[in-house]
């Protein structure tokens, strides 16, 4: 049984198919890359897995249970965390408070536990640990909206990690970062996998995808056009066409 299994997933907007019968699965403790040109439906796929959008048809199974009818917060509780392509931290919160929001998932559902103080030292301690994990322990008092883009992206990962996820969906974590930051973030992602978190990664930077992922799924116009190891995908003529256009036109 695969850890996450997506079957025949279809999403239509106003009659247009953003996703067309997409199938794939992820094994536990693996990193799956999802690539494809703009408009291929990658972010839509994440929005469906995380419950923000409802699929038109198809099914998603997570650890053997069907999750495609759940609300976003229920999916988050089930252990699926995500980041956004266009970062959306809680702008007026401090960095530490952003992480605490994610950490609160174990207290929100209970009528009494949700009335407890969130600024307990044990909670703060755990939040600081998570910040240290993404290398942001010195920024805990900064207001999130004032951070540079690179740190906002790290902060989103920290907030996601506070959910104690077993599956992490990263939507273009490298976009907008400087080259120097790529290696650091790639190291972090590898480390998370070592700790037992399964990762699905949307990324445009090919170098990063090829280095990090065991398997890659290629989407184009909502259709899965290829799946395989980085080497297989890189030499796939359909992928080359979808990505940089037909070879022969350059003649």
């Amino acid at each position: 049984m695969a850890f996450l299994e997506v079957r025949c997933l279809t999403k239509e907007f106003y009659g247009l198919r953003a996703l067309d019968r997409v199938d794939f699965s992820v094994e536990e403790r693996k990193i799956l890359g999802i690539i494809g040109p703009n408009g291929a439906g990658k972010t839509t796929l994440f929005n469906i897995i995380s419950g923000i959008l409802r699929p038109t048809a198809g099914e998603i199974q997570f650890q053997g249970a069907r999750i495609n009818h759940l609300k976003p917060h229920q999916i988050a509780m089930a252990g699926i965390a995500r980041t956004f392509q266009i970062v959306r931290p809680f702008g007026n919160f401090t960095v530490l408070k952003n992480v605490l929001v994610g950490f609160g998932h174990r207290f929100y559902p209970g009528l009494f536990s949700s009335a407890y103080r969130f600024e307990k030292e044990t909670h703060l301690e755990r939040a600081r640990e998570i910040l240290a994990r993404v290398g942001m322990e010195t920024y805990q008092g900064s207001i999130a909206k004032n951070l540079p883009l690179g740190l906002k992206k790290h902060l989103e990962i920290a907030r996601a990690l506070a959910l104690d996820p077993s599956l992490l969906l990263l939507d273009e974590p490298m976009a907008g970062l400087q080259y120097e930051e790529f290696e650091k973030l790639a190291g972090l992602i590898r480390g998370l996998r070592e700790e037992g978190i399964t990762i699905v990664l949307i990324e445009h930077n090919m170098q990063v995808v090829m280095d990090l992922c065991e398997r890659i799924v290629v989407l184009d116009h909502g259709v899965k056009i290829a799946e395989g190891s980085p080497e297989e995908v890189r030499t796939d003529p359909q992928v080359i066409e979808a990505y940089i256009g037909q070879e022969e036109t350059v003649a």
Partner: protein
Amino acid sequence: MFGGYIITVAVTIGIYIILAMSLNIITGYAGQISLGHAAFWGIGAYCSALLSTRLGLPFWIGLPMTIAITALTGSLLAIPCLRVREDFLAITTIGINFVVQAVFLYVPFFGGAMGIGGIRSPFSTSSFFWITLIFVLVCIVLDRWLVTSWIGLALESIREDETAAAISGIDVVRFKVAAFAIGSGLTGLAGHLYAHFMTFISADDFGFPQSIVILSMIVFGGIGTLRGAILGAIILGVAPEIFRPVLDYRTLIYGGLLIFMMRFQPGGILGDQSVLPKLFRMVRQRSPALVRSG
């Protein structure tokens, strides 16, 4: 101890503080703009008045019942508000205000245009002042508890970004309803105090202009902060009394004040970005240095 006039003003301001705090929970913390807050206040007051005059319930028994009923009605009225966002929400809440007021005015059960009179208060005017003061303090404690609890964190996350809050495990619908329930529960308290202090209420007391007054208080003081809600309620509560000598220009000054504030100090006088808190922070940062050098 004080003159009757002063006490009346003080009790009114105390009730306004509770109202401003309750709206601050819905609009300031949870980010759900409500332009119909007076409706919830009215529900509290009418509920309290009916319990007192029809069932003859004493003050302290009517109080918890009023709070509970108002909180329940508030969360029911929040249901149409969950379907709509931003400006649609703002106007829907105006609509709720007009409809609720119309019900009070036209349904004979609520006394119609005559309102409800003869609500008996067990307290003298001056002890009412102390009771109001105690309730204000209790509300302040409650508010402090709320913002430091997981509920408060969830509400503020929803204000910042609903989607991001949802993927962080927050049940947005439940917490929005909770904000309306807590907020209108407090207006229930304010309504109970008001009904028993005035001993007579009518639908005119809870119209849309009152909602604007309450909203102006929290915007004036600095939306989303407790100190702003309190100070806004005090200033805008005292203002009409101060301007009493220029009675004719009172409302004009009030309107002008709102324009002036929004134009030049849109964060409110105690909002984080405004002059006074900045000055305060500056002084606090400098003063140790001054002490040392002196």
